[in-house]
């Protein structure tokens, strides 16, 4: 008896172990099966779709604009709303081959996925021609959107978005005006003036709380080991005439049509020397290289009503300093390197990355109702619908002025900020959209203030030669070999350069080490990388 039991037990254990590992594969595929057999005239066509939405976003059934769009397209969509673990779900979903009619979300299906699963996604070219007038209108009005959507062989699987209203740069420069006033200082316009102002911030009681030692004159966002990012002092390179493109994380930028890397540029050396001078004088937060982003944000919020940081970079003033301290800060124009410098100052140019997105929506090649699905996609790209995709339904979120103009309404809940309100009400930036340039829409306060805070930077941003001084990173699709060469070279380059950057800023020594460093950088394969990128940039130019 005992023996029989132990046999049964062992068998059950083995069986359950086997079942557990085979079960994982089947689970996800079933949910997405499309039952598109119904297609009778008059009746709405049933479709299935997955959307990767923001965790704050409310259920789709409550979005008036979406219900209306589905009705106009004559479809009824069964939504699966995904907020987390998409990459894991995606793997199982794609390898099962049983995908829903539509997958929507910012780069939810990447070019790599499309290449990895040939035949799974629909080439949309013919459908756009026959059923997508709004998409065609976008391609005609904004030819760059067609370039973003087109694969190297000319096919179009994922459609891009254009959201128009976002500023031309992600990074704005802020200084505490109240501190300047307290100490009777003028707004700095050059590096040297900035240095003097920061010294005054440090040595005197700029925030007026009686403690002259609690001021942090300068702070910037944590510098990662994989490259630079936004809100970092690399924007000072603008003073020397270098235009960063989307923060130029790995140093690549373009100047007069030539691809270069600032990490081996003499002008970068001067920026680092300036930062080292500031650090040595105790003007930069001593934790700047070890704090994380949360700490970086919370330090600038100060304690209660007392500001702690004098000069820093950020996206928007209330986001950076909190509602209480924000009024103390003003947005600054780019600095000149020296008073007698005649270099045209520049800044970080991020317009493309902030206003365009790729692969926002893809269609299954096995969908039984491709035309209906395309009709729905076409609805989304109608400018008035797109506006509601981004900001919410006409009624609760947007006011229709009746004369073809629109206005974004403030949050219904006064405790909520406009950004959160937008993400709660609708798909927002995660949706496919085309905000036509001729659509008249008054923006909410958050977007208006971002716009206003970008004003001081506008002369520099307007002066940028977008043809020859902005690296068209978004529009380049590298071949797999070139991509892997670049990836390897850049990993090596970042290992060397990021360590050196922080070392030079915190302990100096750039003068002695620079020449050796430049030689080392060549060894990481930089000349080869520059040559590859240049080739693609030239080709991209020829195709325009």
């Amino acid at each position, binding site marked *: 008896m005992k*023996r029989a039991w*132990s*046999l049964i037990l*062992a*068998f059950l*254990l*083995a069986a359950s*172990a*086997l079942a557990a*590992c085979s079960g994982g594969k089947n689970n996800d595929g079933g949910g997405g099966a499309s039952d598109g057999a119904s297609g009778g005239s008059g009746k709405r066509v049933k479709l299935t779709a997955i959307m990767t939405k923001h965790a704050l976003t409310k259920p789709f059934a409550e979005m008036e604009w979406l219900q209306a769009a589905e009705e106009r397209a004559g479809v009824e969509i069964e939504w699966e709303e995904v907020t987390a673990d998409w990459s894991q779900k995606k793997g199982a979903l794609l390898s099962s081959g049983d995908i829903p009619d539509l997958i929507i979300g910012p780069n939810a299906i990447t070019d*790599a996925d499309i*290449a*990895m699963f*040939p035949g799974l996604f629909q080439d949309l070219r013919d459908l756009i021609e026959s059923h997508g007038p709004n998409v065609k209108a976008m391609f005609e009005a904004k030819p760059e959107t067609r370039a973003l959507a087109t694969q190297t062989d000319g096919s179009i699987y994922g459609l891009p978005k254009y959201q128009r209203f976002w500023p031309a740069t992600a990074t704005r420069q802020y200084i505490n005006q109240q501190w300047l006033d307290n100490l009777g200082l003028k707004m700095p316009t050059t590096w040297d003036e900035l240095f003097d102002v920061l010294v005054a911030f440090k040595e005197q009681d700029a925030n007026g709380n009686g403690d002259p030692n609690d001021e942090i004159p300068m702070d910037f966002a*944590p*510098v*990662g*080991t*994989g490259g630079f990012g936004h809100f970092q002092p690399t924007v000072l390179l603008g003073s020397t005439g270098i235009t960063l493109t989307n923060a130029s994380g790995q140093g690549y930028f373009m100047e007069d049509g030539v691809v270069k890397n600032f990490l081996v540029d003499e002008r970068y050396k001067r920026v680092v020397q300036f930062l080292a001078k500031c650090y040595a004088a105790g003007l930069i937060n*001593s*934790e700047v*290289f*070890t*704090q*994380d982003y949360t700490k970086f944000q919370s330090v600038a919020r100060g304690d209660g009503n007392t500001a702690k940081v004098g000069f820093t970079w950020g996206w928007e003033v209330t986001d950076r300093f909190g509602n209480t301290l924000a009024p103390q800060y003003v947005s600054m124009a780019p600095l000149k390197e020296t008073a007698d410098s005649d270099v045209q100052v520049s800044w970080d140019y991020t317009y493309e990355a902030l206003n365009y997105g790729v692969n926002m929506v893809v269609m299954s090649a096995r969908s039984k109702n491709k035309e209906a699905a395309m009709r729905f996609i076409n609805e989304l790209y109608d400018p008035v619908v797109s506006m509601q995709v981004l900001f919410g339904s006409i009624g609760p979120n947007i006011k229709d002025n009746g004369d073809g103009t629109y206005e974004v309404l403030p949050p219904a809940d006064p405790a909520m900020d406009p950004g959160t309100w937008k993400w709660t009400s609708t798909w927002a930036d995660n949706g496919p959209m085309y905000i036509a340039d001729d659509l008249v829409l008054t923006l909410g306060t958050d977007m208006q203030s971002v716009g206003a805070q970008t004003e001081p930077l506008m002369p520099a941003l307007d002066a940028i030669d977008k043809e020859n001084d902005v690296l068209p990173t978004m529009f380049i699709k590298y071949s797999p070999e070139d*991509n*892997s060469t670049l*990836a*390897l070279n*850049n*990993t*090596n380059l970042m*290992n060397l350069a*990021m*360590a050196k*950057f*922080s*070392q030079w800023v*915190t302990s100096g020594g750039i003068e002695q080490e620079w020449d050796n460093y430049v030689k080392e950088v060549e*060894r*990481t*394969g930089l000349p080869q990388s520059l040559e590859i990128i240049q080739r693609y940039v030239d080709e991209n130019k020829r195709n325009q």
Partner: protein
Amino acid sequence: MAQATQTASGAVRTAAGPGRRRSAWQTLKRDRQLWIMILPAIVVILLFNYVPMYGIQLAFRDYDFTKGLTGGEWRGLYYFRQFIDSYMFADIMRNTVTISLATILLGFPAPIILALILNQVRWKRGKKMLQTVVYMPHFISIVVLVGLLNVLLSPNTGIVGYLLRSMGYEINLLASTSAFVPVYVLSDIWQHCGWNSIIYLAALSTVDPQLYDSAKIDGAGKWQTMRHIDLPAIAPTIIILFILSMGGVLTTGFEKIFLMQNTLNLPVSEVISTYVYKIGILSNQFSYSAAIGLFNTVINFFFLFVTNQIARRVSNISLW
């Protein structure tokens, strides 16, 4: 005790059948219940540890999205050569070996010493409480632990940073290249020492109390009991665990180093696992990172094998 086991098994043998050597089939048949009980474990290990090994060939092939794991073009040792010729190779190997050797050399004896000391504590309740307190940190997740380190060592607001500054040392422990390895190893010992000592305490609990009594009668002090009774009792455990830890000589773990990494300590904190993450996951170089992983495993296996051989020659204790 060893003698007792021998006689017992001898008795079974004579009962089961004639001849001292028996065929594999007969042992299988005799122990069939045990084999059935262990079957699920064998299945799991085969399924999850051996079957996926077919993916190793990725290290010798180009990874091609369209053709799957086994379909890419055969490149032989190309990716291994690429790694060894790589610009980062020397630095990565040096950092990895430094960190893991320091962890083994300092981290390995610590739980042994702790176990020997705990074993001397006579006050039962105090001993139990102490044991619980020292092994609790083991359950702190690594993210939280590194968060703790960041808070404690922060030069402006952390208590350790503050103490150091008040003693006149102007050093940022989170950023310095010379402090990275000590901070890493010491926090590792603090976290895992108590937990790792459990296995030695278990070994010590098997020591016959009569041995202690007779040692006391012979006039042995605490130190002598420890040296002549406790240490020999746990020596086999120590050797086996040491062999196993040598099998991880190039394995530094990923999360903790990755979380502690910043641009200032990068020259000493870039190790094989973080490099593989950057190359393989962030840059999609699957073949290259598979090759690095395999290279790592082969070297680990080599060390495991050599240590095992040495241990077998010297002390007759070994894994196989």
